[in-house]
């Protein structure tokens, strides 16, 4: 193609854009690659300097992450039966035997339940509240919306102590329900505001058409508004999940065993038998996976464009 066009970028512009995008991608993806690589290193390689780019991959980090082990001497090792499984063997090679499963699996499951549970509630309450704010005459609407937003104006952790005392009184300390409620409450301001914006953009005419077509107000909401708000709901859900999934401070304060999530648990791995960086890195890597899957699954809903066009302006 030759000639000049205002809409088609030139070859040079494309080249510059390409370099910028690749540079940005490298900068953001480097720490991630580093963590993933460290998970597959041996503890010695993990702390070697200069860092090893090429190394002998090892599953020691992952085995250590999921197991609790005890250190044994070489003479004891000779008295044992040969290792039965590959992970037993990995443990033996580093001079330990596996004595049981670690608590990572359970902590990870807590994260899944609390993260997805609170996201679900934040979306259910957020969508209905946003719909009400968008469509109905709510007394003191602006003040209420401002109040909802104002819960975000300070770091949530500033109210940690009252929440801690409240939770203790209510018996919600170290319970999954308590954490789900807390994360729902923190996420609600975000979800109400984001979703209100999306629902405001859906013209009320569609609901009127559905009312005429024989549907009730709620059925119209369900059949006509929700499908069109899918984009907004998907992106709001991603934001809510990411917050609940990564939240650290409240999790440290309010959970200790039962309901502890992965973020406060992962750093504790480090203390078991020396500085076990590969196990920490393995924990962080696995921790990334659910959010990535969730985001990829919802990605197609993030594409805008379904709400445009069928109402004559």
């Amino acid at each position, binding site marked *: 193609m030759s000639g000049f066009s205002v809409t088609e970028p030139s070859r040079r512009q494309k080249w510059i854009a390409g370099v910028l995008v690749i540079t940005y991608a490298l900068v953001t993806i480097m720490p991630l690659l580093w963590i993933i690589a460290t998970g597959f290193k041996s503890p010695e390689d993990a702390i070697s300097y200069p860092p090893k780019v090429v190394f002998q991959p090892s599953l020691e980090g992952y085995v250590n992450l999921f197991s609790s082990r005890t250190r044994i001497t070489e003479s004891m090792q000779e008295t044992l039966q040969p290792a039965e499984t590959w992970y037993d063997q990995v443990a033996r090679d580093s001079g330990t035997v596996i004595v049981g499963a670690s608590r990572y699996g359970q902590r990870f499951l807590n994260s899944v339940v609390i993260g997805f549970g609170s996201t679900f509630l934040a979306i259910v309450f957020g969508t209905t509240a946003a719909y009400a704010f968008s469509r109905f005459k709510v007394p003191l609407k602006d003040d209420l919306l401002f109040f909802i937003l104002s819960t975000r104006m300070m770091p949530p952790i500033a109210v940690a102590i009252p929440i801690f005392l409240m939770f203790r009184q209510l018996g919600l300390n170290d319970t999954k329900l308590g954490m789900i409620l807390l994360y729902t409450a923190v996420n609600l301001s975000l979800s109400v505001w984001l979703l209100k914006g999306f629902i405001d953009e859906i*013209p009320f*005419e*569609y609901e*009127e*058409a*559905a*009312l*005429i*077509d*024989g*549907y*009730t*107000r709620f*059925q119209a909401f369900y059949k*006509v508004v929700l*499908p*069109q708000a899918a984009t907004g709901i998907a992106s709001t859900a991603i934001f809510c999940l990411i917050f609940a999934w990564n939240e650290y401070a409240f999790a440290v304060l309010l959970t200790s065993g039962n309901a502890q999530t992965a973020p406060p648990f992962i750093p504790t791995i480090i203390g078991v038998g020396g500085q076990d960086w590969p196990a920490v890195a393995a924990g962080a890597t696995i921790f990334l996976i659910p959010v990535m899957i969730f985001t990829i699954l919802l990605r197609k809903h993030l594409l805008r464009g*379904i*709400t*445009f*066009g*069928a*109402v*004559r*302006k």
Partner: protein
Amino acid sequence: MAEVSLQNISRRYGDQVALDDVTMTVPDGAFVVLLGPTGAGKTTTLRMVSGLDKPDVGKVLINGEDVSRHTPAQRNVAMVFQQYSLYPHLSVRQNLAFPLKSPMLRTPEDEITRKVAEVAETLQISHKLDNKATELSGGEMQRVSIGRALVRDLQIYLMDEPLSSLDAKLRSDLRIVLKRIQTSLGATMLYVTHDQIEAMTMATHVGVLDHGKLVQFGPPREIYQNPVSIYAASRLGSPKINILPADVFPAAPGGAHSIGLRPEHIGIGEGAETRVVRVEHLGDQTRLHLSLNGHDLITLTDPHSPLAKGDTLRISPQSPLYFDANGDRIT
């Protein structure tokens, strides 16, 4: 059977009076065309009947039953919206099937398929059934929106300028289709339009609205021949009625302020002298733009008229309408 009756309906939106004490009874099977400029209350009237809006004062009756508190679904009416309001997340087929799938009807699947195909055929949109509602031209959207009303066999249809975006050929086709469907169903129709031909050919009754007031209600010919005011007279007829000061012709009755002359009610040959300003040959008729003592007026003459700009001719009123200073009819 559906007789729709509005009793003393008033509705305000803020400071704006949308309807002001409107009372009208639409007989069963009538085709009512509502006329009036933007803001006269035509769409509001439809919304009152549909139940999308509730009156501040007054009652809506369907077959004598007070439905003022009923939801749109309970009133069982179909409405074609001026802005189409097709569901953008659904295909044309799903849009047309939507009313049939409502929890009230729960139509069987094969019945839905049959009805949708039939309506699509009638409205000439069969080839677009699998398009998304957003992938249509304005005229196609409008037809889908009519189709969504017609898939249900109802007794009351409300249509807000349903043919406005169609080209002339389709418009005249669908005018006949709509009238035929309405007659065969025996349905009652309330219809908003700005189109003279639609009003005159389809209506059994015309309602003239002015700033929320119903100024005249009756058969179109009656309103054409016997308008109650200059306003009502101006709503029907194309070219519009000529309104001149009463004294340009002799023999005006006492209190007459203006005289209204339909273009076809001007006799050529004798009377006041006028000058031809412009001649428009339309094929089946010829419009003459005349100037009478500085007042413009339009009349019709035969298609082969030899008259040209600058000619003079004499005209006299035939069956004139006289109005007083307020624009109200005297004789």
